[in-house]
């Protein structure tokens, strides 16, 4: 059976050139960058180059890049590090209710430690309202952490406005850009966040490596102790193969960014048109147009998402119902619920995230196998075929993808 991969928000295939380069730094060039000898210098230069490559991807300077083990560690380090460093100024943090668990659970941990956290609501397109954010700011607010784009529904947040507002009140702004970096243009000069998290395996780099950007002058404390690596912010011997892999993946992503975005979003729009035409009572979750190029999130009313995914898997199609981290839990996505979707609609969601290797033929195959599966699952469910039609019309009148 042919296997089709439509789950690029979960992870991506490592680029062959990236894998080859990493292999070199596990075998011949295995040195520790902190070592004084030639092996060490070789590794150090490689890390140095990668730092520049990652900085270039987001318009930063290399001194502002700190390597981590990935998105989760990056979010922990940025949020806790900034919170601890500023706790004398205040103990209030603002985030949203649709963040990844790496942010949500970090904030919950900080609440246990005596910080106060506001979880902002979002509108029905999963976008934060800047006025609601303004009202949440208190004299004690020290950090705003809002994701650049949502991993489940792809909606892009008004980060520039958020940063402007935060800075108006002298508050640091962090953004979890794990889904965005390497897949959609970001520039920390135009959008001057104070800290940003990115992860290698979301853009054809390896797993287990990521980076945070921390704007020069931002107060941040280390959250793990050890050697003095990464200018004392992230102790632990550098993951050199991972770092060089991340660096090259960043360079390739930057070089191919414009083409990839165009190719992938064309494919996505083709998929959306096909589905909306062939499957009635379907809702697209997330912002109609301002969304990540590869992301589309459908709700098929009257269909249970898990059964749908397993049926697709049996046809060789890899997709997801939301975040890979929460699969296996039957509770509907916290993101879809925060967007105000009724439970039964949130339950029937399907996330397709396209990548650079996906083809038109693959999209056509999905369009061929999906409608009969949906029809069969609907015929089994108690759904009356009525309950959602009104809202469906409302949605379609705003839809720009007709």
């Amino acid at each position, binding site marked *: 059976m042919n296997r089709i991969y439509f789950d690029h928000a979960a992870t991506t295939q490592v680029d062959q050139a990236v894998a080859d380069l990493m292999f070199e730094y596990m075998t011949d060039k295995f040195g520790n960058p902190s070592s004084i000898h030639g092996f060490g210098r070789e590794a150090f230069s490689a890390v140095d180059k990668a730092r520049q490559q990652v900085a270039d991807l987001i318009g930063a300077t290399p001194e502002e890049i700190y390597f981590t083990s990935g998105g989760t560690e990056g979010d922990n380090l940025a949020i806790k590090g900034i919170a601890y460093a500023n706790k004398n100024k205040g103990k209030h943090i603002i985030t949203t209710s649709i963040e990844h668990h790496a942010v949500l659970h970090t904030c919950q941990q900080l609440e246990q430690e005596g910080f106060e956290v506001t979880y902002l609501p979002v509108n029905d397109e999963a976008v934060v309202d800047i006025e609601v954010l303004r009202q949440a700011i208190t004299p004690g607010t020290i950090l705003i952490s809002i994701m650049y784009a949502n991993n489940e529904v792809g909606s892009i947040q008004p980060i520039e406005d958020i940063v402007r507002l935060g800075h108006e009140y002298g508050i640091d702004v962090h953004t979890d850009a794990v889904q965005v970096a390497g897949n959609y243009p970001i520039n920390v000069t135009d959008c001057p966040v104070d800290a940003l998290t990115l992860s290698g395996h979301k853009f054809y780099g390896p797993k287990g490596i990521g980076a945070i950007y921390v704007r020069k002058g931002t107060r941040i404390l280390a959250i793990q102790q050890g050697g003095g690596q990464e200018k004392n912010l992230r102790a632990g011997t550098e993951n050199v193969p991972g770092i060089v892999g991340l660096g090259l993946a960043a360079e390739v992503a930057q070089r191919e960014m414009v083409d990839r975005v165009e190719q992938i979003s064309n494919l996505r729009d083709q998929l959306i048109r096909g589905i909306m035409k062939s499957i009635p009572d379907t809702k697209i979750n997330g912002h109609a147009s301002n969304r990540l190029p590869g992301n589309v999130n459908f709700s098929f009313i009257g269909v249970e998402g898990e*059964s749908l995914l*397993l049926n697709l898997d049996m046809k060789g199609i890899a997709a997801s119902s939301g975040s890979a981290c929460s699969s296996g839990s039957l509770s509907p996505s916290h993101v879809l619920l925060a967007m105000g979707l009724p439970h039964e609609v949130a339950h029937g969601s399907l996330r397709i995230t396209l990548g650079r290797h996906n083809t038109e033929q693959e999209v056509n195959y999905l369009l061929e196998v999906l409608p009969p599966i949906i029809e069969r699952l609907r015929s*089994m469910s108690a759904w009356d075929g009525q309950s959602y039609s009104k809202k469906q019309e409302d949605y379609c009148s705003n839809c720009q993808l007709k």
Partner: protein
Amino acid sequence: MSSKGTVVVGMSGGVDSSLTAALLLQDGYEVVGVTMRLWEDDSLVESTRLQGCCALSAVEDAKRVAALLGIPHYVLNFREPFKQKVVDYFVQEYISGKTPNPCIACNRYIKFDLLFQKSIALGARYVATGHYAISEYDQEKKRFLLRKGYDHAKDQSYVLYHIKQNQLSQFLLPLGKYSKDQTRLMAQKLALPVANKPDSQEICFIPDNDYKGFISRISPTTIQPGNFVDIHGKILGRHQGLAMYTVGQRKGLGIAAGKPVYVVRLNPEKNEVVLGDHNDIFSVECIATDLNFLAIDGLFKPMLVQAKIRYSAHESPAMIKPLENGDVHICFENPQRAITPGQSIVFYDNDVVIGGGTINTVI
């Protein structure tokens, strides 16, 4: 494809269900393995969690076997319905002075209901488990019958009696033809990684087997001490709460009566535990409620059967009679030891399951 159709196999990670999947695959079915996640004590971190049938290691064992067989494998999360339909029921029955059988509740509500539904959603025609019982079509009766497994010592038809006719027609039980030893031998020959895994004995959500401790933890306030009384109502001492006792129990009563005493019955109205001597725990009659009939449409006139009052009991000849309210009156030929309210009574005609119900009252 010359497949016999798709079958979903409930895989617990043990040897029985693993071999079930392997045999069906050999037999030409398209096999999809699923493991039901039923219970997890969230307060413990993974490394200290106990090893029950729904523990994470069970999921991993099932995944390993599925990978070896080259079949898809999915984990289905049934924790919420399992808590409601099995665990809460289990605790509630004990609190109200009955002795529940959680495996029967699990088969009825989780397997025959949710697993069947999910399997149909997956496009499967059949569902299979590793129970030692036989499901087959009877030409004469024009219906599917549930029979005992060939290995009567290992027979598990008792825990399956709540299945419905239409479900039975889609239910495959390939192990019914084999003994446990044959199962292990076949699993070894196929080099299944779980071939020598020990059988699970305990209730899967109480891996330490301490059901009293479990009930006290889950529902501490409902456990009220009360009186031990003799069969005439005379107070003999204090008990620790009805949930701590079961009919026929002799050990752990903490009563010095100068002779062996047994729990005769539990009286929830008065919160009393009634004690008596060995003779007092034998009875010949009881009433069963919540019945399911498999080999017949229903019980409309008295019928002579062999009845089994608990999983570990032997069948014994009995006359079963329909009552007006749909319950069944059971009259044994010989007195039975410790007929226990809450337990299931299953009726057989030789090796065919006629039906069964829950013991409600002992007369």
